[in-house]
């Protein structure tokens, strides 16, 4: 599904005759080529998971983190160009601490999402900047409960029950829609996220991958943290079993 810009795609400050900005669409392609990232909102919190494609067997497991904590109660999972993602995370952390200094309370997730989206959008307005080549899934828990947002390279940001970006996003979205999220706890959600990521991982095209997951929920005392080691292992095991059952059919 490639569209040729033919001259209207040389700068992010140029519209095409049919009203598109091609550079932003190309930035979105960078996200589509990255490993799958999903996030779901369960009844008591958020779970995020990343399919971290391993470039080399020499890499240390646990390195190259794709999920970052922005402040105590929010975290971001990044898909696309990793270096661009680092920049956005740094900005988000800065916005969060600034909000806390001025208003004396932790930044509401809605505010944080708006500020991140604003920043991403900013880089689509000037010819001397290029758009960020990353999609972000932002999950947080504030006094209005758990909330999940997704920010695209265009700067669009929406709130979701479940979101997926990257290679397997179509398949992942289909799987997420099957889940009954409003009745699920985060503990159950972790297992489901693992299953989905294992399922959408393309063994043929991609080599090994590492599963990285985080949550922020009542069980984690509304703090954003890596999913505890034993639960993560349990999730991985359940996911592998589910895959084998599927293959056996």
């Amino acid at each position: 599904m490639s569209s040729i810009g033919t001259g209207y795609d040389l700068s992010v400050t140029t519209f095409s005759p049919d009203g598109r900005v091609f550079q932003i669409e190309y930035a979105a392609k960078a996200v589509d080529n990255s490993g799958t990232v999903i996030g779901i909102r369960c009844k008591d919190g958020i779970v995020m998971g990343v399919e971290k494609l391993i470039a080399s067997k020499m890499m240390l497991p646990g390195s190259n983190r794709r999920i970052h904590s922005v402040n105590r109660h929010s975290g971001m999972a990044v898909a696309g160009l990793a270096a661009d993602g680092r920049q956005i995370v740094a900005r988000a952390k800065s916005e969060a601490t600034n909000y806390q200094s001025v208003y004396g309370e932790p930044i509401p997730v809605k505010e944080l999402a708006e500020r991140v989206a604003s920043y991403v959008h900013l880089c689509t307005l000037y010819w001397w900047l290029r758009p960020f080549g990353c999609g972000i899934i932002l999950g947080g828990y504030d006094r209005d409960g758990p909330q999940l947002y997704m920010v695209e390279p265009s700067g669009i940001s929406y709130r979701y029950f479940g979101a997926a970006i990257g290679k397997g996003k179509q398949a992942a979205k289909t799987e997420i829609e099957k889940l009954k999220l409003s009745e699920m706890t985060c503990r159950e959600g972790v297992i489901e996220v693992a299953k989905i990521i294992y399922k959408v991982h393309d063994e043929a095209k991609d080599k090994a991958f590492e599963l990285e997951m985080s949550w922020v929920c009542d069980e984690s005392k509304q703090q954003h943290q890596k999913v505890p080691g034993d639960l993560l292992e349990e999730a991985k095991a359940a996911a592998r079993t589910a895959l084998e059952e599927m293959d056996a059919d």
Partner: protein
Amino acid sequence: MDLNMDLNAPHSMGTTIIGVTYNGGVVLGADSRTSTGMYVANRASDKITQLTDNVYVCRSGSAADSQLVSDYVRYFLHQHTIQLGQPATVKVAANLIRLISYNNKNMLETGLIVGGWDKYEGGKIYGIPLGGTLIEQPFAIGGSGSSYLYGFFDQAWKEGMTKDEAEQLVVKAVSLAIARDGASGGVVRTVVINSEGVTRNFYPGDKLQLWHEELEPQNSLLDILNSPSPEPMNI
């Protein structure tokens, strides 16, 4: 009488200001005297200023400083409310006041009491005295008249009062302070804030009860001469 009164002295609110939490909200109270030296520039001023629909502030110290600080914070809170999409919390309002008070402490001379109601914490009172400290309290007193109220509140304050008890306490306290503090006077204004909204009340100075050694107001000695017992100071 000092004919060389300094009418150009800075307007200062001698003031008595009070903020009290009760079971369901807060009651803010203040006197109404603004003085320029010994001259009462405004005997009916309103020292309880609105910041948002649900948060008010009692002002003391320099009238100009406290007005400006309130104006800035009202402006910031307005923007904040729009961005947030819901009413600002009392804590945020108090924090903004504190930031301005603290960061400009060398230039400002104003003590403020922020009080209001929000859906997360209910009724809250925050005291922000001269240096820019922020302290959340079940009740707060401020202004020159407050010196005379510390002992009174130690004895009369209790947790979980009703709305009427709290308001009566505030009116009594301001009235006592007015009796003893030369820089406080005029009328007693109160503002009650709770989940249902905001109510302003007004207690004229001459309707307040008389305390120890206070005399009945007398318009003219001539009135007394015509009364049954023409002995003016014999009470």
